[in-house]
């Protein structure tokens, strides 16, 4: 049979598996079967936190079969992301996607749980959601689910688009054993922070709040549509919020210019780079918008 669209698609999938597979590694850091990881920079491996059951003697097996020692450069249990530093640099680095996953898109789930070669399964992106609280006490802004089979040892491996770029990091550690994919932009950002600080800093504001509807008149004053905000019902003494000048009765509507509609979004906004920095917080006070700068503390 001559080449046709089916053969072309089949070849493209095998090419994508090969391309991303070269940057997918085996991570051996537990007693049971090894798991997977992604070469995220020339000497850094992005993987799942829950597969790291020991800190010493971590071995990584590359796409070409060579074994390299690694140590933990940073880890965050809440998002189940960890970064390993390799003993030496490697050549093949994974390429993160430039266009985020779309519902219905076909995608490969790749892993390297055995030294014998790459393993793959095919599915479609069946849900994109978030934010959700993870089973490990963190918050994930966005997640991807697929209908593909996740073989044992696939945690830490990539979800791959048909062009071989990485859509996200697969893990069974966030949702009671069910496979979930952390979108690449989020995973990469967490990994960048982990490389810099070794851990994810969780911000502390020191307020108690509840979600309230923003009256139409106040929405007008905000100059953008926002249905809800967070009514401050308590401010801790000596907290970053009280030092910054937040008071009971303020309706918090944005952090660093990003609208905050619910608690989960505040939680997400307070993670990472804002910790220790003076951050503009937009509130409605007496129905009028006001910006207050608060130096975000650390929990």
């Amino acid at each position: 049979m001559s080449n046709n669209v089916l053969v072309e698609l089949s070849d493209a999938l095998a090419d994508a598996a090969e391309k991303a597979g070269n940057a997918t590694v085996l991570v051996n850091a537990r007693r049971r079967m090894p798991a997977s990881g992604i070469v995220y920079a020339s000497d850094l491996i992005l993987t799942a936190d829950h597969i790291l059951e020991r800190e010493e003697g971590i071995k990584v097996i590359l796409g070409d079969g060579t074994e390299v020692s690694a140590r933990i450069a940073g880890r965050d249990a809440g998002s189940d992301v960890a970064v390993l530093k390799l003993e030496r640099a490697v050549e093949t680095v994974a390429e993160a996607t430039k266009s985020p996953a779309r519902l219905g898109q076909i995608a490969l789930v790749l892993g390297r749980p055995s030294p014998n070669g790459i393993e793959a399964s095919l599915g479609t992106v069946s849900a994109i959601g978030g934010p959700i609280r993870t089973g490990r006490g963190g918050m994930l802004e966005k997640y991807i689910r697929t209908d593909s089979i996740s073989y044992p040892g696939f945690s830490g491996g990539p979800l791959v688009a048909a062009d071989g770029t990485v859509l996200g990091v697969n893990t069974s550690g966030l949702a009671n054993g069910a496979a979930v994919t952390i979108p690449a932009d989020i995973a990469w950002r967490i990994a960048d922070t982990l490389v810099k600080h070794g851990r994810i800093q969780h911000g502390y504001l020191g307020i108690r709040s509840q979600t309230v509807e923003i009256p139409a008149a106040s929405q007008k004053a905000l100059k953008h549509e926002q249905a809800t905000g967070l009514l401050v019902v308590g401010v801790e003494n000596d907290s970053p919020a009280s030092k910054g000048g937040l008071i009971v009765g303020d309706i918090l509507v944005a952090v660093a210019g990003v609208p905050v509609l619910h608690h989960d979004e505040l939680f997400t906004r307070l993670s990472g780079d804002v910790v220790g920095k003076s951050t503009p917080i937009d509130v409605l006070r007496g129905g009028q918008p006001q910006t207050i700068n608060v130096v975000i503390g650390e929990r």
Partner: protein
Amino acid sequence: MNFNGTFTQVIDELVQRVMPSLVIVRGHRFGAGAGIVWDANGLILTNNHVVGRHNPIVILQNDGEYESRLLARDPDVDLALLSIDATDLTPLRPASVSPRVGEMVFAFGHPWGQRNTVTRGIVSALVSAQNRRGDTLPVVRSDTPLAPGNSGGPLVNAKGEVVGINAMIIGGDQSVSIAASVAMDFVNKALSKKNSEERTNQRTPQDVI
């Protein structure tokens, strides 16, 4: 790329091409497996575990039923070669190269007795399975759904070439097919043994010299 209807069309063509080579092999009183027409003159390849103890009945796509002769069987590779008295059959061609992880595959068979079923997947891994003697056997693992009744049927690539013989029994809950290279070796060995036996029996002039 313009998929304007052609995608469904090529899948339909693939199915039309492969289906005539799919047979039913009934080797036990209950249940049946699948088999592959391996050459135009009646060679049928299937799993050893499908054959059972007797010469099984082979049912072609035209509903023709044939009592087969068992030419060879090997429990270590879970393959058996049958022969039926039929000609002008449509055989499948094995792929000349080993499959790639990620490429599309289609399994043909009769899962749970549902006749002529096609399931789709990709090659998940090229691995070695251990047979009961502890020897390693190259197999193709895929994410194609397989069930009892798929055994002995073909796993084909996007070109309709055989990349494996479905044999879930080896893989437990994973979909496993015996690599086409193993099948080719098995058939070649079986045929050369058969030919040499026939030469001995016939005592043709060449053999006397």
